[in-house]
């Protein structure tokens, strides 16, 4: 085999045993790698109804078919587990050095189960596995612990995935950090913390081979040139923070806990300002020819020295969404969220919910142990991050569980503005005037996720009328999800998505040139619905019901107050129709369940019996 090794490492932390699972080309080409393979491994290695924080939850890593090769922006990896935040599938992606090392150590994936009796570092040295006492590094931040352990090992080739204090304290949206990149959403860091696994360290010394080296190098050179062109212009110049002014101009920039959609300080926190006043460097992941990470550093003032590769999502969440209107505190807050090891998006939306509760008098200064979290108060935001990471006090403990659980506990109408779907906090695009995207978020298998939905493109680019719900949205949204899913399984970074003449023809060919495994464009295309339905099947197995595909009351009951999207709101009956149209496009029943025949058609025969239902009956007349 080329690129792939055909081996998956299984580790049981409870008794420190390991075993090797062998997989062949037939299996690999069905799921490809990344999120697809990781989800399959979770499905196969967790019992139905397991406690996400218990020993039976499987934390699964899966390589990219292109990892460790020159294929641009293919050196990434997928992680999945049953999410402690949503109770549904929790899949996430990361990239760079750690992704490369999984391949160079000779593994296509890892399945980690059990629970270590003490804090542990799992060290994988090519094919040798050892368990190291993590005591010297427990309590350290994510980057601090990676640097410290790497120094301890004395080898820059030891690459590490680490959790920070947030993961150690089982904050439900904790991240796993590797090389400054994050396995960000749904709490895979929490699962790692529940297993008392402080770090996974890998050193791989083996070469990665490809089936047709000359062809792969030619494709690489071609893609390197294309990725310096218009398809990636935004990422190479301003990076994702270009979205701040874009979204503000459209009146969809979430402001003050998604109450407003235009932020009066948008210019000051924009990608333009970041570039002009704070940018120090554009940095790339290993194997990336784009270099989207725009690092900004604060040179003076209260936050002097704060620095981070700033992306749009944490920027909005801890910025406009918290009413914070300058970049220095946002840079510092995102850096702190990263170092503590928590999802910047979820953290920002939890903080903004807390701020609104305080401003409305639902929660008091006493509830916050003396902090008065008002919108715009960066000190309060910083203090709340700390409280959450360490579960300090009743409020820290509550907020650490995410906005869904916190608002359920507090009540008093706070659930109406707890901005999540299925427990996953909303991303940076106000849905009231992005009405295809509203459905995309509601039906998302990992919760409200723009990255898995991609349907906001339809609304923003004007493919559809964003202010209305009309027939036909179901199929459009499904096609976007399927495409995103294929990228997540290969793995190819989404920022490459506009760099191919014909994506499925080109990428299927490149996949075969790299791995030697025959894959037609149609087979590649089928991975999208296959893995999406696999995620859905997992969710159904874990207790998903139709009412979970929904959005908070705010998007229905509070029309956008000002700006270009003024007056927009979602109508409940229209959203329901849109969701049911989507289910129909997917071939599911009206209740959102998957017919056996559909699972069989997608090559998921083995779960058809367990999950599949009868075909939906066609309505006569």
């Amino acid at each position, binding site marked *: 085999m080329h690129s792939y090794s055909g081996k998956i490492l299984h580790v049981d932390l409870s008794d420190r045993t390991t075993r090797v699972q062998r997989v062949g080309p037939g299996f690999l080409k069905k799921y490809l790698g990344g999120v697809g393979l990781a989800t399959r491994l979770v499905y196969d290695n967790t019992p139905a109804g397991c406690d996400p924080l218990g020993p039976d939850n499987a934390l699964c890593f899966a390589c990219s078919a292109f990892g*460790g*090769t*020159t294929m*641009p922006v293919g050196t990434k990896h997928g992680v999945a587990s049953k999410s402690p935040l949503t109770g549904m599938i929790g899949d996430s992606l990361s990239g760079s050095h750690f992704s*490369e090392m999984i391949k160079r150590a000779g593994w296509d994936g890892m399945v980690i189960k059990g629970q270590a009796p003490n804090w542990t570092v799992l060290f994988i040295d090519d094919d040798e596995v050892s368990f190291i006492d993590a005591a010297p590094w427990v309590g350290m931040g994510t*980057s601090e612990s990676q*640097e410290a352990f790497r120094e301890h090992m004395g080898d820059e*080739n030891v690459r590490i995935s680490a959790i920070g204090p947030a993961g150690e304290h089982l904050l439900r949206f904790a991240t796993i950090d590797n*090389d*400054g990149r994050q396995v960000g959403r749904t709490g895979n860091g929490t699962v790692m913390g529940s297993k008392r696994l402080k770090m996974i360290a890998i050193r791989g*010394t*083996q*070469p*990665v*081979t*490809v089936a047709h*080296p000359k062809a792969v*190098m030619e494709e*690489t*050179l071609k893609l*390197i040139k294309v*990725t*310096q062109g218009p398809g990636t212009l935004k990422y190479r110049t301003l990076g994702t923070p270009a979205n701040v002014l874009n979204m503000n101009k459209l009146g969809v920039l979430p402001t003050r806990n998604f109450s407003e959609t235009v932020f009066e300080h948008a210019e000051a926190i924009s990608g333009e300002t970041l570039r002009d006043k704070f940018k*120090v*460097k*554009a*940095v*790339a*992941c*290993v*194997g*990336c*020819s*784009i*270099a989207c990470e725009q*690092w900004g550093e604060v040179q003076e003032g209260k936050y002097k020295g704060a*620095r981070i*590769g700033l992306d749009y999502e944490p920027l909005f969440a801890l910025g406009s969404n918290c009413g914070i209107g300058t970049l220095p505190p946002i840079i510092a807050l995102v850096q702190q969220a990263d170092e503590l090891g928590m999802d910047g998006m979820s953290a920002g939306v939890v903080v903004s919910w807390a701020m609104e509760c305080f401003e409305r008098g639902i929660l008091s200064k006493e509830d916050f142990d003396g902090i008065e979290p008002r919108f715009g108060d960066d000190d309060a935001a910083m203090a709340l991050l700390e409280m959450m990471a360490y579960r300090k006090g009743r409020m820290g403990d509550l907020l650490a569980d995410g906005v869904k659980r916190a608002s359920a506990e507090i009540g008093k109408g706070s659930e109406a503005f707890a901005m999540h779907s299925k427990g996953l906090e909303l991303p940076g695009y106000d849905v009231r005037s992005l009405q295809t995207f509203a459905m995309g978020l509601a039906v998302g298998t990992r919760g409200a996720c723009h990255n898995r939905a991609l349907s906001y493109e339809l609304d923003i680019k004007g493919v559809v009328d964003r202010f209305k719900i009309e027939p036909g949205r179901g199929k459009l949204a499904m096609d976007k999800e399927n495409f995103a899913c294929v990228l997540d399984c290969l793995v190819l970074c989404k920022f490459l998505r506009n760099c191919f003449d014909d994506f499925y023809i080109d990428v299927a060919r490149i996949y075969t040139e790299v791995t030697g495994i025959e894959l037609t464009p149609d087979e590649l295309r089928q991975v999208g619905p296959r893995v999406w339905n696999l995620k859905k099947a997992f969710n159904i197995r874990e207790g998903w019901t139709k009412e979970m595909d929904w959005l908070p009351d705010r998007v229905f009951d509070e029309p956008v107050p000002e700006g270009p999207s003024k007056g927009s709101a979602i109508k409940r009956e229209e959203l329901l129709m849109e969701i049911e149209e989507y289910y129909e496009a997917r071939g599911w029943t009206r209740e959102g369940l998957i017919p056996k025949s559909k699972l069989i058609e997608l090559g998921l025969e083995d779960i058809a019996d367990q999950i599949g239902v009868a075909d939906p009956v066609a309505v006569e007349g």
Partner: protein
Amino acid sequence: MAETGYQHIICDPDKCTGCRMCEYACSMTKTGAFDPGMSRIRVVRIEPYTMTAISCRLCADAPCVLACPRKALTRSEVDGTILVDTDKCDGCGWCIEACDFGAVVLDPAAKVVSICNLCSDEEGGPQCVAYCPKEALSLATPETLRQQTRREAVARLFQELLES
């Protein structure tokens, strides 16, 4: 040819993004597999955003040549690169200790060393330069490097004057 006439690979740290494509291109060219450990050019990445690539500097009075106890290393008069006689080299590693730039690579299985030879046997020249997405790598002599740096400094000065 004068000593200052030899070209070597240089990296502009402002343009380098730390992607390490150069390591992949080099190792594939030289070994037929993607094996950054065997790359003759290596990226040094000091987190979070300091990075540059480094390879053989073609030193005059090269310490590696002087250090070799078996006289396995010689300096080419054609292009100044260090040539390794693989019959004589037994992988002792003295040259690695002598090199001030970490530019000598040891293949632990074959027990011989490798040093960047500017892809003199490749059509298209240095592959690291060809594959760098940001054109951070180039071939330069010390003199051309000085000239380029002077030009860029002056261009920056005039641009700042124009903008102000």
